[in-house]
C-alpha cells in the first residue's frame, strides 16, 4: 500500500508538470524551457544545475550495479 501511495505521489507530480507546461504554452510564457533559461541566466544557479546534472549522470551510469 505504501508503495502505491509513493508511486501515486510521483504520478501526481508528473501530471502537474504536464498541466503546467500545457497552461504555459497556451499563455505563451512560463514554460519549463523559460524556467530553465531563467535559472541558467544566473551564474551560481547555472553552476549548481550543471554540477547536479553531472552528478545525476555519474549516479545513474557509474554508481549502479546493473548486473
Amino acid at each position, binding site marked *: 500500500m505504501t508503495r502505491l501511495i*509513493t508511486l501515486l505521489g510521483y504520478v501526481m507530480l508528473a501530471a502537474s508538470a504536464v498541466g503546467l507546461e500545457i497552461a504555459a504554452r497556451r499563455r505563451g510564457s512560463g514554460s519549463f524551457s*523559460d*524556467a530553465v533559461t531563467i535559472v541558467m541566466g544566473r551564474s551560481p544557479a547555472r553552476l549548481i544545475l550543471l554540477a547536479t*546534472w*553531472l552528478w545525476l549522470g555519474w549516479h545513474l*551510469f557509474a554508481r549502479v550495479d*546493473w548486473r
Partner: protein
Amino acid sequence: MEDLGPGRHRSVVKQAAEADGSERDTGCRMPSRPQHIGTGHEIGQARQAVDRLSQPAVMEGLAVGAAEGKHSYQDGTEMDDDRADLRARILRTAIVVLVVAYAWWAVARPAFSSSATLAVLTAGAAAVALGALDRRGPGRPVQATKVARWALLAGALGAWQLVAYLQQPRDDHPTLSSLTNALLDSHAARAVAFVLWLAAARELARR
C-alpha cells in the same frame, strides 16, 4: 486527341519524354511511368503522359523549380551548396554514430569503477563544454514570477523524494533512482539514456 495520327503520336511521346528530362533537372516531382494498356497502347501512353504533365501539382513544381533556378548549375553555386550540405550531413551522422558507440561502451564499464566514473564524467564535461561554446543569444525576456510554479513543483518533488529516501524498505518507498534502475535494466536502454543525458547536458550549457 481522338484524331491523332501515327506521326503526331510519336511527336507527343517525344515531347513527354523531353518534359521528363527537364523535370529531372529542376528537381520537381516526376510523373509516374505510363501504364501498358493493351493494343493501341502508344496513343494511350501519349495521352497519359500529357494528362499527367497537365496536372496542377506537376505544373506548379515545374514553375517553382524554374523560378528558383535549381536547373542551372552553370555558375557552380548550387553545386557548392549541395556539397556543403552533403558534407554537413555526413559529419552529423558520423558524430551521432560515434556518440552512440561511446555510450554503448561507457555504460558497459564495471559499476563503481574508476573507469566508469572517468567515462561518464569526461563525456558529460565535454558535452557541457561544447554547449558553452555554442551558447544562445539572449532570448525574449521572461518574468521570474511566471515560472515560480515550476520552483514550487521542483520543491514538492524534492520533498517527496526525500520522504521516500528516508524510509525503508526501498521496495515500499521507491525513490526516483530506484525506479530508474528498473527502467534502465537493459544495456540498450542505458545507452539510449546516456545519449539523452549528454544531449540534455549540452542543451543546458547552451542557455
